[in-house]
């Protein structure tokens, strides 16, 4: 145990016995929280941006680059707020990224490879680790969600494309398919056909962003801009989740669920129990 750990336990005024049990409690919560963070982050992403990241031939230069960071910063910010507000732990964004990555690779191997026979290289996922680490690092250094949102949010959006391009670029080499030039990613999508997934369902660079040259960096900067606001909104959502002041644990709540109250079981009825509910204030 480090001096700092001892100082925290002293500040918490926990007896050695209580401190020992609190560590056991930590392990239990870590396991439960890991499943929670993984499922919430993954489900949120599936619902809002799933298709864009499933297949290599869906990762276009405009919409994938734009939508992926905007969606992923949601849970990163919310979990950051929860862990920071309650425990001063700057790990929410990294935990979301790490557990999402774990979940997404399990899903790619199990569903797309194992059940559907598709090669894994067709369904490689993107990652938002770079942005998540920067968000957590910045919150730790600044202790301010405002500064983290302003600068970390921008960097979250800006780093997404280059950090993914580092391993995705080879998929965009030019090849020839039936006398037309196409990318290797498009060729893979055409070769490993997915039933009920016609070519037109992909949104490939629709719009006029080409007016500004390469559309990818326009998307990157716009995404970074939107990430600032997404961060603040989802930080507030996460903060709200830490203020569980409305969970009724009093007399009426017990009655509602058929639980025995102290009055019924012979104890004294709490003062004002008929009209008030008590709550857990974080």
């Amino acid at each position, binding site marked *: 145990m480090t001096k700092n750990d001892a100082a925290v336990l002293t*500040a918490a005024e926990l007896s050695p016995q209580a401190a020992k049990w609190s560590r056991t409690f930590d392990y239990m919560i870590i396991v439960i929280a890991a499943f929670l963070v993984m499922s919430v982050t993954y489900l949120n992403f599936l619902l809002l941006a799933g298709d864009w990241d499933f297949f290599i031939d869906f990762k276009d230069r405009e919409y994938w680059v734009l939508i992926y960071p905007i969606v992923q910063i949601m849970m990163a910010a919310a979990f950051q707020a929860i862990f920071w507000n309650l425990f001063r732990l700057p790990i929410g964004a990294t935990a979301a990224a790490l557990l999402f990555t774990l979940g997404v690779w399990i899903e790619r191997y199990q569903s797309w490879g194992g*059940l559907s026979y598709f090669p894994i290289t067709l369904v490689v996922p993107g990652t938002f680790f770079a942005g998540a680490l920067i968000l957590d690092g910045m919150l730790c250094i600044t202790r301010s969600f405002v500064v983290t949102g302003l600068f970390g949010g921008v960097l979250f959006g800006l780093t997404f494309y280059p950090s993914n391009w580092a391993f995705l670029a080879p998929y965009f080499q*030019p090849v020839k398919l039936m006398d037309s*030039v196409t990318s290797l990613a498009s060729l893979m999508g055409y070769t490993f056909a997915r039933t009920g997934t016609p070519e037109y369902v992909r949104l490939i660079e629709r719009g006029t962003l080409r007016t500004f040259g390469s559309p990818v960096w326009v998307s990157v900067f716009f995404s970074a801009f939107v990430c600032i606001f997404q961060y603040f909104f989802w930080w507030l959502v996460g903060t709200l989740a830490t203020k569980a002041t409305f969970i009724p644990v009093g007399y009426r709540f017990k009655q509602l669920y058929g639980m025995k109250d102290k009055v019924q079981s012979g104890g004294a009825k709490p003062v004002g129990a008929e009209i008030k509910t008590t709550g857990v204030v974080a």
Partner: protein
Amino acid sequence: MKFGFWRYRCLLLLLLVISALLPNYAMALGEKATEPYIRTRTVLWYDVQWSADKIAVNDTITVTGKFHLYTDWPDAAARPELTFLGETAPGGSLTRVESYIDGMPAQQSIRGMELGRDYEFKLVLKGRVPGTWHIQPELSVKGAGPIIGPGKWVEITGSQADYKISVTTLTGIHISDLQTYNINRVQAWHLFWFLIGAVWLLWWLRRPLIIPRWLAAQKGRDEILVTDTDDVVAASVIVIALVATVAGYWYITEAFPYTVPLTGGSNKVEALVEAPHPVMIKDARAEYDVPGRTLRLFATVTNSGTHPVRIGEFTTAQLRFVNRDLPAELKNIDPGYPKDLIAPTGLKIDPDTPIQPGETRKVYMEATDAAWETERLMSFLNDIDSRIGGLVFFFDETGTRHMAEIGGPIVPVFTEQQMTKR
């Protein structure tokens, strides 16, 4: 009572476990679930052929045929303004090598197909996963969904490990197997980020966590919860993330200077040259005999050609009802065509005599088969417009085939008294 409650719970749990452990095989791809108005009145497939019914891994199978876009296209389905030719096969059991519509490459979506016109297609597929798979052509219509053609069971033999697909890029890089290309690089990067993230998390999780930190935070002891050392580690993590991002981007851009975007967009394909239609069908209506599983068609046929013609076949929703008394029609049936899609009772026609040039005649056709039920085509009774459509093939004495659309309202009959007297 209490015993029974627990017994039911245990039984339920046991059933759940068994259902989870049992392997689930999909024996079809949902074509029966498609509404009858889509299967009978949108894309009508004909002359579909499969080049083989058994291939080895790495061998190819070619699926060819034609489809007619029905004129009375239902309002409930979007018109075929943007379409894509594909095939239905389970997962990656086969890979697509080439696809054509009217001889034009169809790797892109096709726009502007015309109702009432015919198109020819060709799909070249390569065996990848051993097994017996149901292979069907499919035309996806934007707004209407995939419209599946007739299917045939094709066996793929050999070992999946033997499957290879090699590609050479336009920059001269040879890829020996596309199935595994670049996967090592992707996973190495993911692992790199994962390890940094894991180190960062462990840096925090190794300490007393939930209760002590919460209590200390409530007392405002932030200085012991996040220390100067933590700041240094955090700054290092930020620097590593930024440097790795910039360096990785710079390296890959240097390594692969020539890249192209994903290919999108659509092509325009002209329909096949319209063949003369000397035979026309008008005033068609239909009855479906529910207990008899029989479709009865009443229509007026006009032969404005120069040769007498006879009815050879009625086809709808990939089912074929053929006139077994007409040799020209029997010759028209590919021996390799899936037997389950050809009704054994055939098509009864009254009168089944040649319709002379210039003659207009009222004709009655009867198509009986359990397939109306097993293919779930009778749910048209729930459709909002209760109409049916299909194609009728006529043959003249030279064996020349003429095609005509047939379609109209359909009424279910449940008793003999309700049937139209002829």
